[in-house]
């Protein structure tokens, strides 16, 4: 079998190419048309509603998702903790502490699960429909959350982790430093005005008094991570310039999220270098200028983020606003 038929690799097959060319116009359009959902009328058995209910209009579900209010409000059950000793309930305000060799499994209301590693200390801060929060004082938790974004929060000594869906590992050391590793979906890290968005396959450290560092792809080299650590947590220290040079030199297209975060974090004098490097992978969209980025123009940063194709900043900012509304963090 030709590799070309499997994945267009290997030697080209002229006949298959001809068929592809001819048939291409029949393919699904790119982007696909908006998905239009027409809610079906609700008719009760007792005839409280007669005829066809006039449901409000059809709604469009676009990639950015906008209007459909499908969130199901379910009763919030108690959190159940399972360890080798058996099951127990975990109440708001209570601490959960695992021993040196003890692991616990927690049912997070009806929105997910949490695996708690040994030597971990956690407090349940709040649990109600649409909002669940924990304090992780020390240790490691693996969270799998299937609720809509912005419903599950883990407060740590140095940052607030906001679940933007859906699987991640969060570790807090004895000194309050932390690290999040994202397996699927996104996690937002926030401390005061400093925020990081961490996609699947990436990690992000955090430090007390500074907040979240710069997210990085887990495939980057140890030297790259060390260099980012200098930029994030030892700004102005000797070696900062060399650290930035290493990060820029080693960055590839898969590091665009890292570079985007650095745009607003490196000293003003270095922003042009980051600008140029990111521009080699994703061109700055119309209206985004070097001077604007140098000045930290939020609209321009957002526009460039949108150009990365990772979701719109409108969505991120909405969630970000909700963090502020929901959690008076630090």
């Amino acid at each position, binding site marked *: *079998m030709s590799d070309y*038929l*499997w*994945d*267009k690799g290997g030697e080209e097959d002229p*006949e*298959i190419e001809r*068929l*592809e060319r*001819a*048939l*291409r*116009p*029949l*393919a*699904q359009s790119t*982007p*696909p*048309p908006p*998905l*239009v*959902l*027409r809610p*079906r009328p609700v008719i009760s058995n007792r005839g409280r509603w007669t005829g066809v209910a006039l449901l409000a209009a059809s709604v469009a*579900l*676009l*990639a*950015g*998702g*906008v*209007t*459909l*209010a*499908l*969130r*199901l409000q379910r009763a919030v059950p108690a959190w159940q903790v399972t360890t080798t000793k058996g099951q127990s309930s975990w109440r708001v305000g209570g601490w959960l502490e695992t021993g040196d060799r003890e692991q616990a499994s927690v049912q997070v209301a*009806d*929105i997910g699960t949490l695996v708690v590693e040994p030597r971990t200390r956690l407090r349940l801060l709040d649990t109600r429909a649409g909002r669940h929060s924990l304090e992780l004082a020390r240790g490691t938790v693996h969270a*799998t959350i*299937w*609720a*809509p*974004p912005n419903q599950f929060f883990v407060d740590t000594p140095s940052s607030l982790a906001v679940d933007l*869906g*859906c*699987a991640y590992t969060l570790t807090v050391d004895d000194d309050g430093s932390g690290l999040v*590793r994202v*397996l*699927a*979906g996104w996690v937002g890290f926030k401390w005061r005005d400093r925020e990081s968005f961490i996609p*699947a*396959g990436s990690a992000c450290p955090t430090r007390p008094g500074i907040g979240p560092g710069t997210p990085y792809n*887990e495939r980057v080299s140890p030297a790259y991570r060390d260099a980012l650590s200098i930029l994030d947590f030892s700004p102005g220290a000797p070696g900062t310039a060399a650290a930035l040079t290493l990060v820029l030199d080693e960055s590839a297209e898969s590091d665009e999220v890292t570079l985007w975060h650095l745009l607003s974090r490196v000293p003003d004098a270095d922003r042009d270098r980051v600008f140029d490097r990111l521009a080699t992978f994703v061109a700055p969209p119309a209206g985004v200028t070097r001077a604007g980025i140098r000045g930290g123009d939020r609209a321009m940063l957002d526009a460039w983020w949108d150009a990365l194709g990772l979701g719109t900043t409108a*969505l991120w900012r909405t969630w970000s606003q909700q963090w502020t509304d929901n959690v008076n963090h630090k």
Partner: protein
Amino acid sequence: MSSAPDTVKTDVACLVRSAQSGDRVAFAELYQRFTRMVHGVVLARIGRADVDDVVQDVFVTALERLGELREPAAFGGWLGTIARHRATDHGRRMPPTETLVHEVAAPGDRDRLEALAILDAIRALPDAYRETLVLRLVEGMSGAEIADRTGLTPASVRVNLHRGMKLLREKLT
């Protein structure tokens, strides 16, 4: 970290779970990821003029029944089954003549006529072959993508592509 395919599966499972709990953004993402597969499955069975409507219907049905899906990682195979049933139902309801009228290209539109002739030849193949070939040749998906989206094993996709292409070459010569 898990391997890449595991991550992809986990990712889809998480999206499905989020969608099951009412997250419209997650469902929109599933639509984005799976719409080509559904489009191809439907196009392999019914007239092109009705494909977009049926694709929409498939996703509406999927949204309504999403709560019944026990294994979120099996979303692709489950969605493909809905698509096949919807397309088959639609084909039963629509008289063949109507399909033909919609399929006829404008006079002089040779490229379009050629495309429709090839599509007709693919549609005349056995089910498994025509669907896989439409996904590969029309929708431009790789064999690995087809396996990932439909839930078929890569080995099955390889066989379907190979045998289907052999039959198609014979039909077109």
